[in-house]
């Protein structure tokens, strides 16, 4: 494979080399093959979309990337090295943050505390010094608070900082979940249907935030989305999955004109 160089997008953004590569990933659950021999790569700084009909295996793929599922076969390469078998928390500590299709927040905690948990991978003070709240832990806590406040400003959720997450409407929960992932300052951000279930206005906000994150922090983003319009607007390159197989891979325009993709979507519709 030779795509370790960057490329320039249609709108003139410079994209870096490969940061993550899935090599021949297969994932089986008993008799069900959720992913069958799929390879694709993610370049530094791009917005990579995974699309496909229901049950295509998109979430499963995201779960493999984030370490929640262990592939039956295949390798995950990250930052130029083959990734050993890792637990999800270890993957998170390597700079891979994610959101979930069915929102996974800490419902009993405030918005602020939820987002603060996003900083866990960035904090190093020992347990003992935290327990007695010594200098280093305290300084760290303050520094992290500042970072978190910036994320809060960025996503325009200042007004709900102290609200328990359980009380928020769905759209805002999705935003808080994004905020928590962003607080980790990830090198790769995985978003599983960030706009599912939102109204048009919320979708527009979310699209804008995703573009801004990519633009301002240069964060690499891999997202799953059903809304074709959104995908076409946001992403630089798209992987198309159907029944666990990859049936297309390329720029939005290429993918839209791919016969296999058209068939899959017409077949569903």
């Amino acid at each position: 494979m030779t795509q370790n160089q960057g490329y320039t997008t249609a709108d003139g953004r410079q994209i870096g080399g490969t940061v993550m590569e899935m090599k021949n990933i297969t994932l089986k659950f008993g008799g069900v093959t959720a992913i069958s021999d799929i390879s694709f790569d993610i370049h530094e700084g791009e917005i990579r979309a995974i699309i496909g009909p229901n049950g295509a295996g998109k979430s499963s793929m995201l779960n493999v990337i984030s370490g929640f599922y262990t592939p039956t076969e295949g390798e995950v390469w990250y930052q130029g090295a083959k990734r050993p078998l890792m637990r999800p928390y270890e993957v998170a500590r390597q700079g891979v943050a994610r959101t979930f299709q069915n929102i996974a927040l800490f419902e009993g905690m405030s918005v602020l505390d939820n987002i603060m948990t996003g900083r866990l991978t960035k904090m190093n003070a020992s347990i003992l010094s935290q327990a007695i709240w010594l200098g280093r832990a305290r300084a760290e806590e303050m520094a992290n608070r500042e970072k978190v406040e910036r994320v809060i400003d960025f996503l325009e959720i200042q007004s709900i900082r102290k609200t328990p997450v359980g009380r928020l409407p769905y759209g805002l929960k999705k935003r808080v979940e994004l905020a928590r992932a962003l607080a980790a300052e990830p090198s790769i951000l995985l978003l599983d249907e960030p706009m599912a279930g939102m109204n048009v206005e919320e979708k527009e906000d979310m699209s804008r935030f995703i573009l801004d994150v990519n633009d301002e922090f240069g964060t690499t983003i891999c997202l799953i989305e059903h809304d074709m319009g959104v995908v076409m607007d946001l992403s630089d390159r798209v992987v198309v999955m159907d029944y666990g197989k990859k049936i297309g891979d390329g720029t939005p325009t290429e993918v839209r004109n791919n016969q296999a993709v058209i068939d899959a979507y017409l077949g569903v519709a």
Partner: protein
Amino acid sequence: MLHKIFIDPFVEMYMLPDFLLQVLWEGLVSGILYALIALGFVLIFRSSRIFNFAQGIMVVFSALTLVGLHAMGLPAWVSVGATLVVMYILAMTIERVVLRPLVGQPDIILFMATIGVTLFLIGLGEIIFGGENKVMITSELGIPTGAFELFPWGGFLILEQKDVTAVVVAGLLVAGLIAFLNYTRMGRAIRALGDDHQAALSVGISLQTIWVLVWFIAGIIALVTGIAWGARAGVSFALEVIAYKALPVLMLGGLESITGAIIGGLMIGMLEKLFEIYWGQPLLGGNTETWFAFMLALIVLLFRPQGLFGEKIIERV
């Protein structure tokens, strides 16, 4: 008869307010210890969905270890430090040998495993320290053994200094724990894990680390409870029964609520004492403290199945 139930006790409370205070104080001292034990349960339940049957025996085991180490010649406070190390090793061992292999098993299996831990600790404690009663090293630890005498309303109130110490230390422990849970990274991680495992993993929280930490905190709580209770009643395996008092506390306070554990513990401690003194002894021949808490919890649950504080019980949605 009705008179004796509904009038006399209250008249007595009104006539002898200093005695009422004394009764409430005694209840508070027991209550805060029930609350501590319940808190240990809650922490472990929230972070691992395990109903830790071993919490009570951990109280006994830590107290035995403390007294035993001191008997072997270690200075009192060194023994406390060494006991903490033992409790930490215990936490690591439980995580490694019991929790990790059983993760993902049904709750009942994990519950059974904690019964196993209980039996193991009973055996281990007896082998190392013997089964006979021991005296808590109260004065060696510098805990004052005198009494404060107060004269409220011209009456008379005795506060044993070791009880005052127990209440203050337990209060500090609870306050420290709450601050730790709310304002530190690890505390936040513990609460996060209690709320949502998946989300916790996604932000880099390691289940193993948190479990060890939580079981260690439960061990610290056990040691404080063991010292305080041991100072009142001596150290023996009979101490374990106070852990059963944590059950009604949890029924009232809910398995997941820290506030519930504290308020529930204090309530049960004080109410059972009040009942014993004003109703139990005059009308029922005394010894009501063994069952009152359970009856109270059952009655409350009849009307509020979710417990007093309304958090969901056991079943996770």
